Protein backbone atom coordinates (compact mmCIF):
# COMPACT_ATOMS: atom_id res chain seq x y z
CA UNK A 1 0.00 0.00 0.00
CA UNK A 2 2.23 2.81 1.26
CA UNK A 3 5.92 2.13 0.72
CA UNK A 4 7.28 5.64 1.37
CA UNK A 5 6.08 7.35 4.54
CA UNK A 6 7.24 10.81 5.53
CA UNK A 7 6.94 11.09 9.31
CA UNK A 8 7.01 14.62 10.70
CA UNK A 9 8.84 14.62 14.02
CA UNK A 10 8.58 17.42 16.55
CA UNK A 11 10.01 15.69 19.63
CA UNK A 12 13.22 13.70 20.21
CA UNK A 13 11.33 10.47 20.95
CA UNK A 14 8.25 10.32 18.70
CA UNK A 15 6.81 7.12 20.20
CA UNK A 16 3.33 7.42 18.70
CA UNK A 17 4.72 8.17 15.27
CA UNK A 18 7.00 5.16 15.40
CA UNK A 19 4.07 2.94 16.34
CA UNK A 20 2.10 4.21 13.35
CA UNK A 21 4.94 3.77 10.93
CA UNK A 22 5.53 0.23 12.15
CA UNK A 23 1.90 -0.84 12.08
CA UNK A 24 0.91 0.90 8.86
CA UNK A 25 3.88 -0.48 6.96
CA UNK A 26 4.18 -3.80 8.79
CA UNK A 27 2.95 -6.23 6.12
CA UNK A 28 4.86 -4.93 3.10
CA UNK A 29 7.76 -2.97 4.61
CA UNK A 30 9.04 0.17 2.94
CA UNK A 31 10.93 3.37 3.61
CA UNK A 32 10.31 5.80 6.43
CA UNK A 33 11.78 9.27 6.36
CA UNK A 34 11.78 11.20 9.62
CA UNK A 35 11.51 14.92 9.00
CA UNK A 36 12.38 17.60 11.54
CA UNK A 37 11.50 21.19 10.68
CA UNK A 38 13.39 23.80 12.66
CA UNK A 39 12.74 27.55 12.70
CA UNK A 40 14.94 29.60 10.41
CA UNK A 41 17.99 30.83 12.25
CA UNK A 42 19.60 34.25 12.06
CA UNK A 43 23.19 35.35 12.41
CA UNK A 44 24.15 36.32 15.96
CA UNK A 45 25.47 39.87 16.08
CA UNK A 46 27.07 41.40 19.18
CA UNK A 47 28.52 44.92 19.32
CA UNK A 48 28.21 45.19 15.54
CA UNK A 49 30.29 42.05 14.99
CA UNK A 50 28.88 38.79 13.65
CA UNK A 51 29.57 36.16 16.29
CA UNK A 52 27.86 33.24 14.53
CA UNK A 53 26.79 33.11 10.90
CA UNK A 54 23.48 31.63 9.79
CA UNK A 55 25.09 28.56 8.24
CA UNK A 56 27.06 27.89 11.43
CA UNK A 57 23.89 28.15 13.48
CA UNK A 58 22.03 25.90 11.07
CA UNK A 59 24.83 23.33 11.04
CA UNK A 60 24.78 23.16 14.83
CA UNK A 61 21.00 22.81 14.99
CA UNK A 62 21.02 20.23 12.19
CA UNK A 63 23.70 18.14 13.92
CA UNK A 64 21.80 18.18 17.22
CA UNK A 65 18.55 17.13 15.50
CA UNK A 66 20.29 14.38 13.52
CA UNK A 67 21.94 13.07 16.69
CA UNK A 68 18.54 12.95 18.38
CA UNK A 69 17.10 10.97 15.45
CA UNK A 70 20.01 8.54 15.05
CA UNK A 71 18.58 6.17 17.63
CA UNK A 72 15.08 6.31 16.15
CA UNK A 73 16.43 5.55 12.67
CA UNK A 74 18.41 2.60 14.06
CA UNK A 75 15.29 1.25 15.80
CA UNK A 76 13.23 1.42 12.59
CA UNK A 77 16.00 -0.39 10.73
CA UNK A 78 15.93 -3.11 13.40
CA UNK A 79 12.29 -3.58 12.37
CA UNK A 80 13.33 -4.19 8.77
CA UNK A 81 12.18 -0.80 7.47
CA UNK A 82 14.34 1.50 5.38
CA UNK A 83 14.83 4.59 7.52
CA UNK A 84 16.45 7.96 7.03
CA UNK A 85 16.27 11.41 8.61
CA UNK A 86 16.07 14.88 7.12
CA UNK A 87 16.28 18.31 8.73
CA UNK A 88 14.75 21.37 7.08
CA UNK A 89 14.48 24.97 8.15
CA UNK A 90 11.56 27.32 7.65
CA UNK A 91 7.79 27.43 7.96
CA UNK A 92 6.67 23.95 9.10
CA UNK A 93 3.81 23.33 6.66
CA UNK A 94 5.74 24.59 3.61
CA UNK A 95 8.82 22.57 4.58
CA UNK A 96 6.77 19.39 5.09
CA UNK A 97 5.02 19.76 1.73
CA UNK A 98 8.30 20.49 -0.06
CA UNK A 99 9.94 17.46 1.56
CA UNK A 100 6.96 15.26 0.63
CA UNK A 101 7.22 16.30 -3.01
CA UNK A 102 11.01 16.09 -3.18
CA UNK A 103 11.15 12.64 -1.58
CA UNK A 104 8.03 11.44 -3.46
CA UNK A 105 6.31 10.41 -0.24
CA UNK A 106 3.17 8.30 -0.57
CA UNK A 107 1.79 9.28 2.83
CA UNK A 108 2.61 12.03 5.32
CA UNK A 109 2.23 11.19 9.02
CA UNK A 110 1.94 13.99 11.56
CA UNK A 111 1.02 14.41 15.21
CA UNK A 112 -1.47 17.09 16.18
CA UNK A 113 -0.79 18.70 19.53
CA UNK A 114 -3.29 20.87 21.33
CA UNK A 115 -1.81 24.36 20.88
CA UNK A 116 -2.36 27.28 23.19
CA UNK A 117 -4.08 30.18 21.49
CA UNK A 118 -0.96 32.36 21.25
CA UNK A 119 1.09 29.44 19.88
CA UNK A 120 -1.55 28.61 17.28
CA UNK A 121 -1.57 32.26 16.25
CA UNK A 122 2.23 32.32 16.05
CA UNK A 123 2.74 29.05 14.18
CA UNK A 124 -0.52 28.84 12.24
CA UNK A 125 -2.54 25.69 11.72
CA UNK A 126 0.24 23.38 10.53
CA UNK A 127 -1.91 20.25 10.30
CA UNK A 128 -4.73 22.19 8.60
CA UNK A 129 -2.35 23.63 6.01
CA UNK A 130 -0.87 20.21 5.28
CA UNK A 131 -4.34 18.66 4.97
CA UNK A 132 -5.35 21.38 2.51
CA UNK A 133 -2.29 21.24 0.31
CA UNK A 134 -0.78 17.78 0.60
CA UNK A 135 -0.55 15.93 -2.71
CA UNK A 136 -0.72 12.59 -0.85
CA UNK A 137 -2.87 11.12 1.96
CA UNK A 138 -2.14 12.46 5.45
CA UNK A 139 -2.20 10.33 8.58
CA UNK A 140 -2.99 12.42 11.67
CA UNK A 141 -3.06 11.38 15.30
CA UNK A 142 -3.46 13.48 18.39
CA UNK A 143 -0.71 13.64 20.96
CA UNK A 144 -3.06 12.71 23.80
CA UNK A 145 -6.37 11.00 24.41
CA UNK A 146 -5.80 8.49 21.66
CA UNK A 147 -4.31 5.04 21.56
CA UNK A 148 -1.38 4.55 19.19
CA UNK A 149 -2.11 3.13 15.75
Amino acid at each position, binding site marked *: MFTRALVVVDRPAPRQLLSWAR*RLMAPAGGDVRLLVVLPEVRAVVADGRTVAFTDQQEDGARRAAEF*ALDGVVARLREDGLGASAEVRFGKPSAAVLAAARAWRAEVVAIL*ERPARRWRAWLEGDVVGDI*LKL*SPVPVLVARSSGQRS*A
Partner: protein
Amino acid sequence: MSIKTFMRSPGRTLDIRDHLSDAAREVRLEPAGCVLVKDRGALVGALTPADVHAAGPSTLPALAVYEHASLTERLTVAHAVTGEAIVVPLDASLGDAARALRATPQRAALVTDGAEVVGVLTADDLLEAVIERLERDGPSGLARVLVAVSQPASPAAPGSRSALQVALRIARLHDAMLTVVHVMPRLSPAIAEGLSAGIDADVQRWRLAEARTSLGRLIGDVDGLAVRTDIRAGDVVDGVLAAAAGTSADLIVVGGRPGSVLARAVIRRSPCPVLVV
Protein backbone atom coordinates in the same frame (compact mmCIF):
# COMPACT_ATOMS: atom_id res chain seq x y z
CA MET B 1 17.95 -2.99 21.44
CA SER B 2 20.98 -1.11 22.69
CA ILE B 3 21.61 1.88 24.91
CA LYS B 4 22.83 3.83 21.90
CA THR B 5 19.44 3.77 20.20
CA PHE B 6 17.53 4.97 23.26
CA MET B 7 19.86 7.50 24.90
CA ARG B 8 19.56 11.28 24.47
CA SER B 9 22.30 13.63 23.44
CA PRO B 10 23.86 15.38 26.44
CA GLY B 11 22.33 18.84 26.56
CA ARG B 12 23.76 21.96 28.14
CA THR B 13 25.47 21.86 31.52
CA LEU B 14 24.39 23.53 34.76
CA ASP B 15 26.21 24.05 38.02
CA ILE B 16 24.90 22.25 41.07
CA ARG B 17 24.59 25.59 42.88
CA ASP B 18 22.31 27.15 40.24
CA HIS B 19 18.82 28.11 41.37
CA LEU B 20 16.29 25.36 40.77
CA SER B 21 13.82 27.80 39.19
CA ASP B 22 16.44 28.76 36.57
CA ALA B 23 17.32 25.10 36.05
CA ALA B 24 13.64 24.23 35.54
CA ARG B 25 13.48 26.79 32.73
CA GLU B 26 16.67 25.39 31.14
CA VAL B 27 15.31 21.83 31.28
CA ARG B 28 12.06 22.98 29.69
CA LEU B 29 13.90 24.70 26.85
CA GLU B 30 16.37 21.88 26.28
CA PRO B 31 15.31 19.78 23.24
CA ALA B 32 16.80 16.63 24.78
CA GLY B 33 14.60 17.11 27.86
CA CYS B 34 17.44 16.93 30.39
CA VAL B 35 20.67 18.74 31.27
CA LEU B 36 24.01 17.67 32.73
CA VAL B 37 25.02 18.86 36.20
CA LYS B 38 28.55 19.72 37.29
CA ASP B 39 30.06 20.36 40.71
CA ARG B 40 33.41 22.20 40.62
CA GLY B 41 33.99 21.04 37.06
CA ALA B 42 33.17 17.37 37.63
CA LEU B 43 29.99 15.79 36.26
CA VAL B 44 27.74 14.66 39.09
CA GLY B 45 24.57 13.68 37.26
CA ALA B 46 21.74 14.73 34.99
CA LEU B 47 18.65 16.77 35.77
CA THR B 48 15.30 15.71 34.30
CA PRO B 49 11.86 17.36 34.49
CA ALA B 50 10.84 14.65 36.98
CA ASP B 51 13.76 15.65 39.29
CA VAL B 52 12.71 19.30 39.11
CA HIS B 53 9.10 18.39 39.80
CA ALA B 54 10.00 16.19 42.78
CA ALA B 55 12.27 18.78 44.42
CA GLY B 56 10.53 21.98 43.37
CA PRO B 57 7.82 23.97 45.14
CA SER B 58 4.30 22.60 45.18
CA THR B 59 2.29 22.96 42.02
CA LEU B 60 -0.90 22.73 44.05
CA PRO B 61 -2.27 26.17 44.88
CA ALA B 62 -3.65 24.84 48.18
CA LEU B 63 -0.17 23.83 49.34
CA ALA B 64 1.76 26.61 47.66
CA VAL B 65 0.34 29.18 50.11
CA TYR B 66 2.35 27.50 52.88
CA GLU B 67 5.59 27.77 50.89
CA HIS B 68 7.18 31.12 51.38
CA ALA B 69 8.80 32.48 48.22
CA SER B 70 11.96 33.46 50.10
CA LEU B 71 12.40 29.78 51.04
CA THR B 72 11.55 28.17 47.70
CA GLU B 73 13.91 30.61 45.98
CA ARG B 74 16.73 29.05 48.00
CA LEU B 75 16.25 25.71 46.26
CA THR B 76 19.19 24.80 44.06
CA VAL B 77 20.00 22.02 41.62
CA ALA B 78 21.71 20.21 44.52
CA HIS B 79 18.28 19.63 46.08
CA ALA B 80 17.15 17.80 42.93
CA VAL B 81 20.29 15.83 42.06
CA THR B 82 21.38 13.85 45.08
CA GLY B 83 23.74 10.94 45.54
CA GLU B 84 26.41 9.57 43.26
CA ALA B 85 26.10 9.91 39.49
CA ILE B 86 25.03 6.69 37.77
CA VAL B 87 27.45 5.90 34.98
CA VAL B 88 26.86 3.12 32.44
CA PRO B 89 29.19 2.25 29.57
CA LEU B 90 27.85 2.56 26.03
CA ASP B 91 28.14 -1.18 25.45
CA ALA B 92 26.15 -2.13 28.58
CA SER B 93 22.71 -3.67 28.09
CA LEU B 94 19.46 -1.81 28.71
CA GLY B 95 18.79 -4.30 31.51
CA ASP B 96 22.07 -3.35 33.23
CA ALA B 97 21.18 0.34 32.95
CA ALA B 98 17.69 -0.30 34.37
CA ARG B 99 19.12 -2.23 37.32
CA ALA B 100 21.65 0.54 38.02
CA LEU B 101 18.93 3.21 38.01
CA ARG B 102 16.54 1.14 40.09
CA ALA B 103 19.09 0.89 42.90
CA THR B 104 19.23 4.67 43.38
CA PRO B 105 16.87 7.66 43.56
CA GLN B 106 18.45 9.10 40.38
CA ARG B 107 16.25 9.25 37.29
CA ALA B 108 19.00 9.44 34.68
CA ALA B 109 22.32 7.71 34.01
CA LEU B 110 25.33 9.15 32.24
CA VAL B 111 26.38 7.01 29.27
CA THR B 112 30.13 6.93 28.69
CA ASP B 113 32.36 5.80 25.87
CA GLY B 114 35.76 5.52 27.51
CA ALA B 115 36.21 8.68 29.54
CA GLU B 116 33.79 10.75 27.47
CA VAL B 117 30.11 11.24 28.35
CA VAL B 118 28.26 10.56 25.07
CA GLY B 119 24.65 10.55 26.22
CA VAL B 120 22.06 10.42 28.96
CA LEU B 121 19.65 7.56 29.56
CA THR B 122 16.58 8.48 31.60
CA ALA B 123 13.93 6.33 33.27
CA ASP B 124 11.57 7.56 30.53
CA ASP B 125 13.92 6.19 27.86
CA LEU B 126 13.92 2.79 29.56
CA LEU B 127 10.14 2.84 29.70
CA GLU B 128 10.17 3.64 25.98
CA ALA B 129 12.32 0.56 25.36
CA VAL B 130 9.86 -1.59 27.31
CA ILE B 131 6.91 -0.20 25.31
CA GLU B 132 8.72 -0.86 22.06
CA ARG B 133 9.47 -4.42 23.11
CA LEU B 134 5.84 -5.01 24.02
CA GLU B 135 4.68 -3.57 20.70
CA ARG B 136 7.07 -5.82 18.79
CA ASP B 137 5.83 -8.86 20.69
CA GLY B 138 2.21 -7.87 20.05
CA PRO B 139 0.25 -8.21 16.81
CA SER B 140 1.72 -6.24 13.92
CA GLY B 141 -0.36 -4.42 11.33
CA LEU B 142 -3.94 -3.21 11.62
CA ALA B 143 -6.81 -5.47 12.65
CA ARG B 144 -9.83 -3.17 12.24
CA VAL B 145 -10.17 -0.34 9.72
CA LEU B 146 -13.15 1.98 9.45
CA VAL B 147 -13.91 4.14 6.42
CA ALA B 148 -16.46 6.95 6.41
CA VAL B 149 -18.34 7.15 3.13
CA SER B 150 -20.59 10.05 2.19
CA GLN B 151 -23.44 10.17 -0.35
CA PRO B 152 -23.21 6.57 -1.55
CA ALA B 153 -26.01 7.18 -4.05
CA SER B 154 -24.27 10.07 -5.73
CA PRO B 155 -21.75 9.44 -8.49
CA ALA B 156 -20.22 12.86 -7.70
CA ALA B 157 -18.41 11.85 -4.53
CA PRO B 158 -14.85 11.15 -5.66
CA GLY B 159 -13.46 11.82 -2.18
CA SER B 160 -15.49 9.04 -0.63
CA ARG B 161 -14.75 6.71 -3.47
CA SER B 162 -11.00 7.14 -3.22
CA ALA B 163 -11.15 6.93 0.59
CA LEU B 164 -13.04 3.66 0.19
CA GLN B 165 -10.54 2.37 -2.34
CA VAL B 166 -7.61 3.27 -0.09
CA ALA B 167 -9.37 1.64 2.88
CA LEU B 168 -10.07 -1.52 0.85
CA ARG B 169 -6.41 -1.74 -0.14
CA ILE B 170 -5.21 -1.21 3.43
CA ALA B 171 -7.69 -3.80 4.76
CA ARG B 172 -6.65 -6.30 2.11
CA LEU B 173 -2.94 -5.78 2.80
CA HIS B 174 -3.37 -6.10 6.56
CA ASP B 175 -6.07 -8.78 6.30
CA ALA B 176 -8.13 -6.45 8.48
CA MET B 177 -11.86 -6.24 9.13
CA LEU B 178 -13.24 -3.24 7.21
CA THR B 179 -16.30 -1.33 8.39
CA VAL B 180 -17.86 1.02 5.84
CA VAL B 181 -19.90 3.61 7.71
CA HIS B 182 -22.39 6.00 6.14
CA VAL B 183 -24.27 8.51 8.25
CA MET B 184 -27.58 9.94 7.03
CA PRO B 185 -28.26 13.19 8.90
CA ARG B 186 -31.95 13.35 7.98
CA LEU B 187 -32.79 9.70 8.58
CA SER B 188 -34.86 8.81 11.63
CA PRO B 189 -32.70 7.01 14.23
CA ALA B 190 -35.58 4.59 14.82
CA ILE B 191 -35.64 3.58 11.14
CA ALA B 192 -31.85 3.14 11.07
CA GLU B 193 -32.26 0.71 13.97
CA GLY B 194 -35.07 -1.15 12.18
CA LEU B 195 -37.97 0.22 14.24
CA SER B 196 -41.23 1.81 13.13
CA ALA B 197 -41.08 5.61 12.98
CA GLY B 198 -44.48 7.08 12.39
CA ILE B 199 -46.12 8.51 9.33
CA ASP B 200 -43.15 8.86 6.96
CA ALA B 201 -41.68 5.49 7.90
CA ASP B 202 -42.15 4.06 4.42
CA VAL B 203 -40.27 6.94 2.79
CA GLN B 204 -37.47 6.64 5.29
CA ARG B 205 -37.30 2.87 4.89
CA TRP B 206 -37.05 3.38 1.15
CA ARG B 207 -34.18 5.87 1.65
CA LEU B 208 -32.38 3.41 3.91
CA ALA B 209 -32.77 0.59 1.40
CA GLU B 210 -31.51 2.86 -1.38
CA ALA B 211 -28.46 3.81 0.69
CA ARG B 212 -27.74 0.14 1.44
CA THR B 213 -27.95 -0.76 -2.26
CA SER B 214 -25.73 2.14 -3.29
CA LEU B 215 -23.19 1.33 -0.60
CA GLY B 216 -23.08 -2.28 -1.74
CA ARG B 217 -22.55 -1.15 -5.35
CA LEU B 218 -19.81 1.24 -4.25
CA ILE B 219 -17.95 -1.43 -2.30
CA GLY B 220 -18.25 -3.90 -5.17
CA ASP B 221 -16.68 -7.34 -5.14
CA VAL B 222 -14.46 -7.64 -2.07
CA ASP B 223 -13.15 -11.11 -2.88
CA GLY B 224 -12.98 -12.75 0.55
CA LEU B 225 -12.28 -9.56 2.50
CA ALA B 226 -14.27 -9.13 5.73
CA VAL B 227 -16.42 -6.04 5.08
CA ARG B 228 -19.45 -4.88 6.99
CA THR B 229 -21.59 -1.84 6.30
CA ASP B 230 -22.99 0.38 9.02
CA ILE B 231 -25.65 2.96 8.18
CA ARG B 232 -26.44 5.41 10.95
CA ALA B 233 -28.74 8.36 11.48
CA GLY B 234 -27.91 11.72 13.01
CA ASP B 235 -24.84 13.92 13.17
CA VAL B 236 -22.15 12.75 10.72
CA VAL B 237 -19.14 13.28 12.99
CA ASP B 238 -20.85 11.71 16.01
CA GLY B 239 -21.92 8.77 13.84
CA VAL B 240 -18.42 8.14 12.48
CA LEU B 241 -16.86 8.40 15.96
CA ALA B 242 -19.50 6.12 17.50
CA ALA B 243 -18.89 3.54 14.76
CA ALA B 244 -15.12 3.78 15.36
CA ALA B 245 -15.57 3.31 19.10
CA GLY B 246 -18.06 0.48 18.55
CA THR B 247 -15.67 -1.47 16.32
CA SER B 248 -12.48 -0.54 18.26
CA ALA B 249 -11.05 0.71 14.97
CA ASP B 250 -7.27 0.94 14.68
CA LEU B 251 -7.56 3.46 11.87
CA ILE B 252 -10.27 5.71 10.41
CA VAL B 253 -10.07 6.60 6.73
CA VAL B 254 -11.96 9.69 5.56
CA GLY B 255 -12.08 11.50 2.25
CA GLY B 256 -13.07 15.00 1.41
CA ARG B 257 -9.87 17.01 1.18
CA PRO B 258 -8.91 19.80 0.81
CA GLY B 259 -9.66 21.36 4.15
CA SER B 260 -12.59 19.10 4.96
CA VAL B 261 -14.51 20.25 8.02
CA LEU B 262 -15.60 16.66 8.61
CA ALA B 263 -12.01 15.42 8.57
CA ARG B 264 -10.86 18.04 11.09
CA ALA B 265 -13.81 17.35 13.37
CA VAL B 266 -13.14 13.60 13.27
CA ILE B 267 -9.41 14.11 13.92
CA ARG B 268 -10.14 16.31 16.97
CA ARG B 269 -12.20 13.62 18.71
CA SER B 270 -11.08 10.35 17.15
CA PRO B 271 -10.08 7.48 19.45
CA CYS B 272 -7.45 6.37 16.90
CA PRO B 273 -5.31 7.88 14.09
CA VAL B 274 -7.14 9.23 11.04
CA LEU B 275 -5.98 8.86 7.44
CA VAL B 276 -7.28 11.76 5.34
CA VAL B 277 -7.32 10.84 1.66
